[in-house]
């Protein structure tokens, strides 16, 4: 093979330089693009980092608030227990105690149908913060039945003479015409616990 080449050497050199320049331009433009992309990426990462720092600060702040709120709730629970203990020490009766007293006061034929213990918080309502604090009942609403009016009078006397009850009012007493039960009366009494002013 006769491998001659009739391209002038200086033309080859010029073409080499031209091609080198072409490659340099390509390389430079590629580098610029890569640098721009990198700068964009760095900027995005910086923005993300700033957002992360901001959210971390906010999280710490909220966690502190949550901890202080938990502390307040714990204190409230402790105070509630203390209030209950104080109320017991003051002699406020519980519902069981009232049931026991009324059971003693009622004649054997009579029986209670309902007992409603009213508390000042329930009466006034709307103050939820004190809902769990036992300050003692303010009134007792009693429904029951007895064989006759005498037994109702007996119950009223027993309650009036007892220190555990304050003012005792008979709200209503009515005869029941029940053929199965005979001549029973139904009564309703409203009273205050002992030591509570009307």
């Amino acid at each position: 093979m006769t491998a001659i080449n009739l391209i002038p050497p200086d033309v080859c050199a010029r073409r080499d330089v031209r091609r080198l320049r072409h490659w340099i331009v390509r390389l430079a433009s590629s580098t610029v693009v890569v640098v721009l992309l990198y700068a964009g990426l760095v900027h995005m990462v910086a923005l993300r980092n700033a957002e992360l720092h901001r959210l971390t600060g906010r999280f710490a702040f909220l966690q502190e608030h949550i901890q202080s709120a938990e502390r307040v709730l714990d204190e409230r629970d402790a105070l509630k227990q203390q209030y209950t203990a104080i109320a017991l020490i003051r002699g406020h009766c519980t519902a069981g105690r009232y049931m026991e007293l009324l059971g003693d006061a009622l004649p054997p034929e009579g029986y209670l149908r309902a007992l409603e213990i009213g508390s000042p918080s329930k009466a006034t309502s709307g103050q939820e913060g004190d809902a769990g604090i036992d300050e003692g009942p303010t009134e007792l609403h009693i429904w029951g039945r007895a064989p006759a009016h005498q037994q109702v009078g007996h119950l009223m006397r027993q309650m009036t003479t007892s220190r555990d009850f304050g003012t005792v009012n008979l709200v209503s007493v009515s005869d029941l015409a029940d053929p199965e039960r005979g001549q029973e009366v139904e009564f309703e009494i409203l009273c205050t616990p002992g030591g509570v002013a009307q």
Partner: protein
Amino acid sequence: MTAWTAGLGLTAIRNALERNAGGYVGVEAERTLLRVARHQTRGRREAWSVASIPLPMESAGRLKETNRGLRAATRRAGIQKGPAICAINSPAIDVFPLELRPTESESLEGLVVAHAQKQLGRGLDDVVLDYAPLPDLVRRPGEGTVPVIAFAAPRELVETLLVRIEALGLNVVRILTPACALAPRVAGAEEEARHLIIDTALEGTSVSVAQHGHVLLERILPWGLRKLAERLGSELDLDEQRCEEFLTAASPSASTSERPGDGGEPADPMEALVREVLAPAIRELAREAAACLDYCDSVLRHVPASAVVLVGPLANYPTLRKLLEAELNLPVRCQGEGMDLRGLPDDSHAAAFATAASCALWKEEASG
């Protein structure tokens, strides 16, 4: 390659870039015409894209417009941008054999330059010179000289064609002569046989002797298809364009119109007239070819020529084949018959684009 670029270690990079795995675009260039060919292998199928691109003589102001038109024509032919090997078929290229005796003080290159200056009778500033020593296989044994074939092309021609070809988006990596491109593709090029290769192009006709794929001698004559068409047109008072078409179209009637036993004379009077007009030129071509063979026999090891390989657009004209066969007394192979062109269609393309196709099939690594 300058010292500066070589210093940057660009030689290896350039060679790697130019050694294109996808093959080269082959170009046969003349001052007013380019023949372009590209070979592609798609699976097992081999495909060729070929195009003839006329180069208009444009004014400087319309250069961009012209180049745009040329690029569009190349794209239409399915030839994409890429590295190209170009063979210039121009009588302006001087090819001369030298017998040199290099010494320690005088290198072969220095001797070639000195002899080239003597041969050309002027300085080498406006000339591009290259040479190739002939292989040992063809040298006469016992002689101390080194036979060399030197090629000198006008710098202006080379630079002009480079600019025009690069305007097509092609990157020319090597410029050859038609013989250098064709010699390795001649069928049986590796064998001992010596071939005469004739490439008749538009403006010039390359006559060369090749053996073992090497060019032993080449001459580019200053006439081709255009001059023959002009002569035919003026003698027969015909349009030159029509004459060119007549000469390039393969004409079966012309090849079969001879009367048997009539001394090879054609029966068609028109054909006889054409033959009469072209005969002097073809005789001149045969004389040049015979002189080339004689020179090789006198300077190099004597090997008889086995065949003439005829390529170029004029190779399709059967009368040329017959006249050459008669004058040279050698079998003439044409229409790609004597070439290894890897699937280039065996029609008029094979002959017309043989040089461009040979350039496209150039194996860079084989050249060392």
